């Protein structure tokens, strides 16, 4: 019998891991990645919370899986069409290549919130306002962290929830990873710049993951990071291009103004452009927050409104890496069940 075929769209963590498992189960798997390299956003993170292990270790682990299970990887794949005709999916690329399959895994991931939309924070306007992703890039480069004028910063503030839990920008959900990323980056800043003062401006600290709380405690006790509960209202620039931040310290109950040398915006997750584009092509449903919608929150995660299309990772909701791994494997299993003729829909007594 001919091998059943699966197309995995998106070569980040979830796509790579789902593709590896499906290929190891004996399916003919094609992984489509828009960039020239597999790994997705993970390529941009230096160290991972909460253990501070290197991001590139995880990329290596994922790549090994792809190689061992013999996944057919197509890089620089720009999808121009994706349709289901009968039981068969056909995905067409910009270069004219066509791929057919019996199932599709959507692993199209997230985009970072465009901090320029929060104009009052001055990203793209003031030189010393950067995002958490920009900071990771600086860490990755291995060079010392300096201000735009080349000075060693003495005071740095990290702003939580930029583009998350913010009705004004239209994103009411929590992006889950930014709080702990801020804690992680605070520690890294403290470690790499001796004597620097670090302030975290937060609404709530959501330390839900295993060991997150420990990391938070360590940041306070060992590294003396200052945590101020209050949302940044606006930032402006001094003559010397340092940044004035205005925030209300809601625990102390008074307004606070301070000058920092660098402001780091903890940007949240939004559904990626690819998620929206390919999701629409396949006729998938989107949830109220714009991410892909699963058939049921509790029991039907990874399963979509189109039989044969499964979702994995952050195209469905913001998630940290450990959850993405579990999710990718779950998507592989549900896809396999579908391909073997097991109809999970029969278990639904509700519509």
């Amino acid at each position, binding site marked *: 019998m001919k091998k059943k075929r699966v197309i995995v769209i998106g070569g980040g963590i979830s796509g790579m891991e789902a593709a590896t498992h499906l290929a190891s189960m004996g399916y003919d798997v094609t992984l489509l990645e828009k960039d020239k390299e597999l790994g997705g956003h993970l390529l941009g993170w230096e160290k991972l919370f909460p253990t501070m292990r290197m991001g590139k270790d995880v990329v290596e682990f994922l790549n090994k899986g792809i190689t061992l299970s013999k996944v057919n990887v197509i890089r620089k794949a720009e999808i121009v069409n994706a349709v289901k005709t009968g039981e068969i999916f056909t995905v067409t690329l910009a270069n004219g290549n066509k791929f057919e399959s019996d199932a599709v895994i959507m692993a199209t991931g997230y985009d970072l919130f465009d901090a320029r*939309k929060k*104009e*009052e924070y*001055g990203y793209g*306007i*003031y030189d010393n306002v950067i995002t958490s992703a920009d900071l990771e890039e600086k860490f990755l480069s291995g060079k010392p962290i300096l201000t735009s004028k080349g000075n060693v910063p003495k005071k740095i503030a990290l702003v939580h929830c930029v583009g998350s839990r913010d*009705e*004004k*920008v*239209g994103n009411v959900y929590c992006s889950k990873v930014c709080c702990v990323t801020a804690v992680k980056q605070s520690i890294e800043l403290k470690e790499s710049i001796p004597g620097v003062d670090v302030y975290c401006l937060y609404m709530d600290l959501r330390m839900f993951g295993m060991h997150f709380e420990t990391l938070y405690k360590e940041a306070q006790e060992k590294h003396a990071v200052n945590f101020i509960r209050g949302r940044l209202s*606006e*930032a*402006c*620039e001094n003559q010397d291009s340092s940044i004035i931040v*205005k925030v209300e310290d809601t625990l102390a109950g008074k307004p606070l103004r301070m000058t920092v040398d660098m402001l780091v915006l903890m940007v949240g997750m939004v559904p990626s452009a690819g998620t929206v584009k390919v999701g629409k092509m396949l006729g998938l449903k989107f949830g109220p927050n714009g991410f892909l919608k699963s058939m049921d929150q509790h029991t039907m995660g990874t399963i979509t409104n189109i039989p044969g299309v499964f979702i994995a990772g952050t195209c469905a909701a913001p998630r940290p890496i450990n959850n993405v791994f579990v999710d990718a494997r779950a998507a592989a299993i549900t896809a396999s069940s579908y391909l073997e003729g097991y109809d999970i829909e029969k278990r639904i007594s509700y519509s």
Partner: protein
Amino acid sequence: MNYDPFVLPLCIGVIILAATLAYKYLYWILTLSNADKFKILKGLFSFRFFKACKEVFLESLVHRKVFKVNPLLGYMHMSFALGWLLLILGGTVESKIHSHRPFNAPYEPVFFKFFNHDISMYPWADEFQLLMDVLLLFVLSGLVLAIIKRIYSRFFGMKKTTKLRLGDRAALMTLWLIFPLRFLSESFTSGIYHNGGFLTDGAGRMFATFLPLHNLSYISWWAYSFALGIFFLALPYSRYMHIFTEVILIFLRNFGIRNCKVYNSFSAVEVHSCSRCGICIDKCQLLTSARIRDTQSVYFLQDVRNNTVREDKAYDCMLCGRCQEFCPVGINLNNIRISKRFDFTPGNKNFEYISQKIEKTAPVIYFAGCMTHLTPSIKLAMEGIFRASETDYIFLDKDGTICCGRPLMMAGEILKAHQLIEKNSKLIKDSGAKTLVTSCPICLKVFKEDYLLNIEVIHHTQFILRLAEEGKITLNKSDLKAVYHDPCELGRGCNVYKEPRQLLNKLVDLQSIKNEAEYSLCCGSSLGGLQLNSVQRDHIRIDTLAALQKPEHDLLVTACPLCKKTLSKGADSEVKDIAEVVWMGMKG
């Protein structure tokens, strides 16, 4: 003298109506401030009196402004107002000519045909018959339209027409009956005596073939008189109060009396002048985008009249001023809304703790406004333009300052707003500036309207245009295609439409759009809409953006930091303030 008991309902109705109106109008005029009373006195003996007469003719009778917005609706209003008045005038002249007396019983013209069966014995009798029947037909045609509108408002191109209350319903029913009953009474009588014109006599002859007219005609005159009497009794308690009150309003307005955010008897005159034409309903974006159906100005004024204003309704309005722009009566709907919000404010607060001093003096004072601080690229552009033009200026709110007071004013917190106004006024006075420039139209509105500054107050679009015309800055035209979104507070609020466009024509290839200038749509973030949630605001923003997307353009330009911030969310093209476009060109 001709008399029959059936004239009594009409006579009683008219007498009570006259007494009620006299009482109300005298009360309102007497409770105006002395300054306003003096304006009336001066106005009565000036050219303004004739201007008001002309306006009464055009607006209260011809309903010119209703015509402009909706010709069919205009015709309907005109046929009732002008048609009925001409019927009254025509009838009066006819009856006086007929009786050869300058004075006769006032009901005689109304029931002329009942009392006078021989209609050939006075001059122009035929012409009068023709005229009176044409006028009756004119009014009846309006009535047909009114009934269609009530049943099927889409026929008028209106998505929604007004809802009625009990008093209105009584008046409406009798009003609708008056003219058909007049037609029937005159036709029945003419069927017996042949004293009608082409319409009533024709119909009378037809009715005579199958109806016992001798019995019916007397009953129908009674019914006609009752319909008139009940209508006049119900009038002061119904929307038809607008018929007379609008005339008073037009005179008061021509005499220079204005609504000033405090509810007074002039506001009452405005409220009672609303004809409830319903034009404001369809123009309200809360209806068209957010599907809120019960807060439009016509309903709000009805609540004000009936003293049933609820807090949530008072606050459920963006104060965008679109309805006001379309209101054929020209009622200052925003100020009435604000004056009613005042009733729900919790009282005053002491702002004594605020202190700020002016460090230096300069000819120009710049007030960016809090929203501009939240859109720092506008602020940076303005600072750049000031630098490049070598303007000597004070940046009043560079480092945080006293609020302009407009948000409080819009919330009806008039007392608190005036405390801030006083503090800022002192700062501005101390600065010695001759010109106040703001980047935020919300601030501009309050500076112009509620501050009594003896200096020029202008928006940055006006200031930049002046700099360019004086050659202090050079504008560089690009070939970018742009559309311009008029901010509510700048356009309808401060009447600044021209300068932004003149400026943009020097900068970009400006495309015209559908809802422009005074008809522009609100972005949805208005500070006035205190009752709106983010989903409703989003609906408004999305619809406004969709309207702005046509025609194709590279740049969406506005002149308000709040509009910019709102429209940036979800716009296909880049959104910029005019100051940014200017500065972009100057920087190269």
